[in-house]
């Protein structure tokens, strides 16, 4: 029985539990001639929840833990002799898993009985061929110890799956019956299902929070690893970025931070004024009909994949700036430049600024406008002196959110600004950013052991700290603004 079928069975039991619970509640109430504390449906829900939740939780835990436990046990079975020179135990374990899977498939296909397996044990050369038939390609012939390990892997996996099925079904039935037995008119079934639902919701939010913690923890862990191999002072204060895969590289973050800052600055210089003017126009001047059309139309910009913006930068904006501005002015001859990436990123950010600011401006109470018009202010006076100041914190929040988008953007930079780390002021030269370097340090098959690859995590953590800071600032400002009218 696969986990999928098992889940379906549990769900069927759950449904049955609901119906039985509801019926029993009604029957008990009738027999005792009293009123039920909750609606009959609530009793059904309680039974259903007791049937489904513990069983599914058990199954989840089992599915998560079983491979870990089996792996541990098998891997201690494999003698060191079969591990090839310079290879890793984990590679051999991968083979074991694949062979076990292949054998499962052979047995399933029916071409093969369990007893054939023992004969196969005697003749190793055929193993590779037979497995290839079911699509499991092995690099070399199988060592006896590995084959044995695969066999016992299968054995343990099979028994523990059986155990799992039994345990899950027993839990579902057991808890279901218990809940069914507990039903009496005074049972506060409504509170039971409310509590259950609340814990479910809390659980879901925990998943998100724990994931964040997990990401930060892994970043932190690898970063510490990196700083053991490479001095933190050089990382933060060196102005040279020159990784050498043979060792002895300079990994200074400053050129990358500068590139990130410069590109984002150009982008925001374009996006903020245009976005704000769009927002003011939409919120204060345009009619309802135009607004309901224009706002979604502008938001489409936000839905374009950034790689498409990247293409636009690479093919259109870059060559245009080079041919019409950089070369005539003698400022550079590369089509990748800070200006290219910044301008294209700015276009991408316009809807972030305009849409959020428009919402914020709209949220300024009509009473503010009335008050100002009532004193004889014109529309633009009202906007400049009352609405914008009132909306300012929210607008700052919108800008900061756009800024954190800009800092984290990768694709547009790779295709627009290039990949050359450089500290310079000329916006028509190629430069690069933190995110681009994270990608390029991790591309290719290297182990995460050298400072050249581990630096990616330190870069990532730095970036994370920056954007987190910006986001917290933005949230703080937005929150402050909300309090103003309450």
């Amino acid at each position, binding site marked *: 029985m696969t986990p999928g079928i098992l889940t379906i069975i549990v769900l069927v039991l759950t449904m049955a539990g609901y119906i039985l619970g509801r019926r029993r509640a009604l029957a008990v109430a009738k027999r005792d001639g009293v009123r039920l504390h909750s609606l009959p449906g609530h009793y059904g829900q309680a039974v259903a929840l007791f049937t489904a939740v513990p069983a599914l939780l058990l199954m989840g835990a089992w599915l998560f833990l079983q491979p870990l436990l089996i792996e541990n046990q098998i891997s201690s079975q494999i003698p060191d002799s079969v591990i090839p020179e310079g290879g890793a135990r984990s590679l051999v374990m991968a083979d074991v898993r694949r062979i076990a899977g292949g054998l499962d498939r052979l047995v399933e296909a029916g071409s093969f009985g369990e007893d054939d397996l023992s004969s196969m044990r005697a003749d190793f050369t055929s193993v590779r061929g037979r497995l290839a038939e079911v699509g499991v390609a092995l690099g070399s012939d199988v060592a006896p110890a590995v084959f044995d390990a695969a066999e016992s892997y299968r054995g343990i996996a099979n028994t523990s799956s059986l155990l799992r099925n039994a345990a899950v079904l027993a839990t579902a039935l057991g808890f279901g019956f218990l809940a069914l037995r507990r039903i009496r008119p005074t049972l506060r079934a409504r509170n039971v299902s409310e509590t259950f639902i609340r814990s479910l919701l809390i659980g879901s939010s925990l998943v998100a929070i724990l994931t964040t913690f997990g990401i930060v923890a892994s970043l932190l862990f690898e970063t510490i690893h990196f700083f053991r191999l490479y001095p933190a002072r050089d990382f933060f204060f060196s102005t040279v970025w020159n990784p050498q895969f043979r060792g002895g590289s300079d990994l200074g973050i400053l050129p990358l931070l500068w590139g990130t800052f410069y590109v984002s600055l150009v982008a925001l210089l374009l996006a903020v004024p245009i976005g704000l003017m769009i927002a003011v126009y939409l919120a204060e001047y345009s009619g309802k009909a135009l607004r309901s059309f224009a706002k979604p139309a502008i938001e489409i910009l936000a839905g374009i994949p950034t790689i498409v913006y990247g293409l636009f930068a690479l093919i259109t904006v870059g060559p245009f700036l080079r041919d019409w501005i950089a070369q005539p002015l003698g400022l550079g001859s590369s089509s990748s430049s800070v200006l290219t990436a910044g301008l294209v990123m700015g276009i991408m950010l316009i809807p972030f600024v305009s849409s959020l600011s428009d919402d914020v401006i709209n949220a300024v109470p009509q009473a*503010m406008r009335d008050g100002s*018009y009532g*004193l004889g202010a014109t529309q633009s006076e009202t906007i400049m*002196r009352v609405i914008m100041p009132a909306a300012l914190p929210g607008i700052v929040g919108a800008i900061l959110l756009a800024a954190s988008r800009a800092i984290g953007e990768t694709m547009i930079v790779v295709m627009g600004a290039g990949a050359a780390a450089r500290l310079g002021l000329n916006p028509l030269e190629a430069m690069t950013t933190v995110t681009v370097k994270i990608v390029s340090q991790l591309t290719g098959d290297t182990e995460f052991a050298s400072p050249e690859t581990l630096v990616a995590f330190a870069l990532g953590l730095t970036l994370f700290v920056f954007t987190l800071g910006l986001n917290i600032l933005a949230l703080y400002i937005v929150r402050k603004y909300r309090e103003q009218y309450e």
Partner: protein
Amino acid sequence: MNMLTDAAVEETLQSGSKPAASKMAGKDVTVHYGEKQALFGVNLEVPERQVMALIGPSGCGKSTFLRCLNRMNDTIDICRVGGSILLDGEDIYDPRIDVVELRARVGMVFQKPNPFPKSIYENVAYGPRIHGLASKKSEFDEVVETSLQKAGLFNEVKDRLQEPGTGLSGGQQQRLCIARAIAVSPEVILMDEPCSALDPIATAKVEELIDELRENYTIVIVTHSMQQAARVSQRTAMFHLGNLVEEGPTDKMFTNPDDKRTQDYITGRFG
């Protein structure tokens, strides 16, 4: 009539009998919100330097009429105004009239206090600033102080003029809004239920203030409180279903109205 104190009755009797020139006048005013007609040919004169109260059941068009008087209805897209409204004999809906200047002459105080999210000082200085009524710091200081004083708020806030106006109590906020309106030296002040968000003590203060303002300003006030109308106004106009039912000296309206609907409304039989 048992709801009015004797003093209030006497007050209204005296002041209501004073003859007064008309400051504003509506002639055959009609208002449509889209297809829906909200006012049907209203003729009403607002006497100078007196308080006129507009009363009537909810939805009868009091606010609509009030908003016509300084063209605040212009800010509502679907609103169309017909007929004419005169301020000192000039039609304010004439295309030659500058609505900015009009609103400086006819100020407005709203139902809910709506101070700007600025300092108390800046709230009051806002009007003079946009109309260029003051230029030096000392001039602004003076306008702010006298306006707050006239609104009876100065002593309460003189030590915290730089604090946000939104931090005041509801009653103080409403008086701040009145000070803000006074700061541009209007001739007429329109008030739409200015006390409906206030407690009785704050209400009493605002009513007292209205009574004092009558010396210098013409005031039109919409109210749902009959006692308030009787306490502060010299003339009262009764609206019903978009029509002006009757208009007259407040004491007469409350003791001996011509129209049965007025009688019924005042004694609480409908509305």
